[in-house]
């Protein structure tokens, strides 16, 4: 009985964690190309959800049309961000790029607030909230759907990084100048990584929008997403997935035991502890690449 309960906490925690991973994959894509954690990823995710709603509720399209359309719009926006905000920063200290993502975050949150206001809208995916039993385990259907989306995207990116375009993107992540020297368009590669991260933001925005409603608080996903990305190693998509699962389990199981003791709120403490310990003990995370040292 007790064991079943623990298993249920772990499985649901792992699925919630995969939803963090969904968010963190976007961070990893941009980190690879721009060497900074994109502080605007939360705002992009919220924007992605709003754009879906604009097509669905605003223009009355069915979601299966609205979501791909939003993905296309956001894909274009990703390229636009590179062109307008980032191109002139190439070769500057990365702290400038980091500050640019912060500016972008504030800008996007302000813009979405101005357009859509503060009231929460709902994303009606039509996933039933009827409990789903896997054996004795109670499973949340929307979390299951989200986990599957994450794993599908994960697989797609693993394949992408074996294509020629994906390999060129990895080359850009390694060395801008060497990339330019063999004719790789670094600008286009960085644009592509932002575009892909913006599409991931749509996926995360839809799933998280369904779970917690579409409003400004969606942008706060950034904090947990960052914790997951850091634990995974910032530049590893596999790392983001594994770290999401781990963090989700620790958080869900841990909070179950700690919350009664501290009277709630222990989830954030657990996430903070994981983040801080990662940075102190294993700064490259689980799968982050080390700079190769040859002597």
């Amino acid at each position, binding site marked *: 009985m007790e064991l079943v309960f623990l298993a249920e906490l772990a499985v649901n925690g792992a699925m919630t964690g995969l939803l963090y991973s969904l968010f963190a994959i976007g961070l990893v894509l941009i980190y690879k190309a721009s060497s900074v954690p994109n502080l605007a990823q939360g705002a992009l995710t919220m924007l992605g959800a709003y754009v879906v709603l604009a097509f669905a509720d605003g223009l009355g399209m069915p979601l299966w049309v609205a979501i791909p359309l939003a993905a296309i719009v956001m894909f274009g926006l990703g390229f636009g961000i590179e062109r307008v905000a980032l191109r002139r920063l*190439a*070769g500057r200290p990365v702290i400038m790029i980091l500050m640019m993502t912060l500016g972008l975050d504030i800008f996007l949150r302000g813009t979405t607030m101005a357009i859509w206001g503060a009231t929460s809208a709902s994303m009606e995916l039509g996933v039933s909230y009827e409990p789903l039993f896997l054996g004795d385990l109670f499973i949340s259907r929307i979390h299951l759907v989200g986990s599957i989306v994450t794993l599908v995207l994960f697989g797609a990116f693993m394949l992408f990084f074996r294509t*020629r375009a994906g*390999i*060129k993107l*990895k*080359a850009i*992540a*390694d*060395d*801008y*100048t*060497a*990339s*330019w*020297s*063999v*004719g*790789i*368009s670094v600008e286009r590669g960085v644009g592509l990584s932002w575009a892909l991260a913006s599409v991931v933001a749509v996926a995360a925005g839809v799933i998280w929008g369904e779970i917690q409603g579409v409003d400004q608080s969606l942008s706060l996903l950034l904090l947990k997403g960052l914790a997951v990305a850091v634990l995974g190693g910032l530049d590893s998509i596999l790392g983001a997935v594994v770290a999401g699962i781990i963090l989700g389990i620790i958080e869900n199981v841990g909070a179950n035991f700690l919350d009664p003791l501290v009277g709630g709120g222990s989830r954030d403490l657990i996430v903070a502890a994981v983040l801080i310990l990662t940075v102190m003990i294993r700064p490259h995370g689980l799968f982050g*690449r080390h*700079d*190769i040292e*040859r002597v």
Partner: protein
Amino acid sequence: MQEKPEVEPILSMNSVEVLYDNVMLAIKGVSVQVPRGEMIALLGSNGAGKSTTLKAISGLLKTERGRISRGEIRFEGADITEMLAQKRVERGICHVIEGRRVFEHLTPDENLTAAAPGGMSRAALHAEKEKIYAYFPRLAERRNSASGYLSGGEQQMLAIGRALVTQPRLLMLDEPSLGLAPFLVAEIFGIIQKINREEGVSILLVEQNALAALEIVSEGYLIENGRVVMHGTAEALKANSDIQEFYLGGGEGTDFHNVKHYSRRKRWLS
């Protein structure tokens, strides 16, 4: 019939000045010609302006906030002075930059793939890779391990192979011998020669290791303090007393590491 005076050089750089950060004048009116199909050396000591000259030609100055403030560069007759680096690679100029900058986290095979031009078919890329592995059999053995763990010589070979994938007609190499044991320098120079002969690729070779370079090139330019101070055939340069003095104590068995150190102390004609 009138005889043609001379074939147009594949590259001609005329009185080029380069400014870094809008203030630092790194080269001051450098003119260099590379005749089609030839191998030319650019010699000089540290800070002379050799790498800057290559970057002006490849368009990589921009990434270091440098720019050509004067003069022009023509490649196969066309003015490329203001062209984007990427376009120059498409036209057939490839620059193997200083310091063996391979993509460390990629395998040698992926390094080669990364350099493939946009329109290259899978089959053509495959054939190109096999050709490069034939030039550098050591790379073939390690084609699927992380490039960051290759030896210095292997990394240099990979950097050259990667450049070849772009199908250059002018290949520029920045100090390929740096830090390599003499037998490796000989091996790499042998392959560069082979690329020049078999593929007809024109080569502009930057070297501090003048002795080794002058053995394989037809002409050399000597740069000092941002200016060309000497230009002549390899024979003429080898016979020049200043050059001989520069490599005093050298000769066939020179330890190239020491040459590099020595050249750091000696300044040319300044």
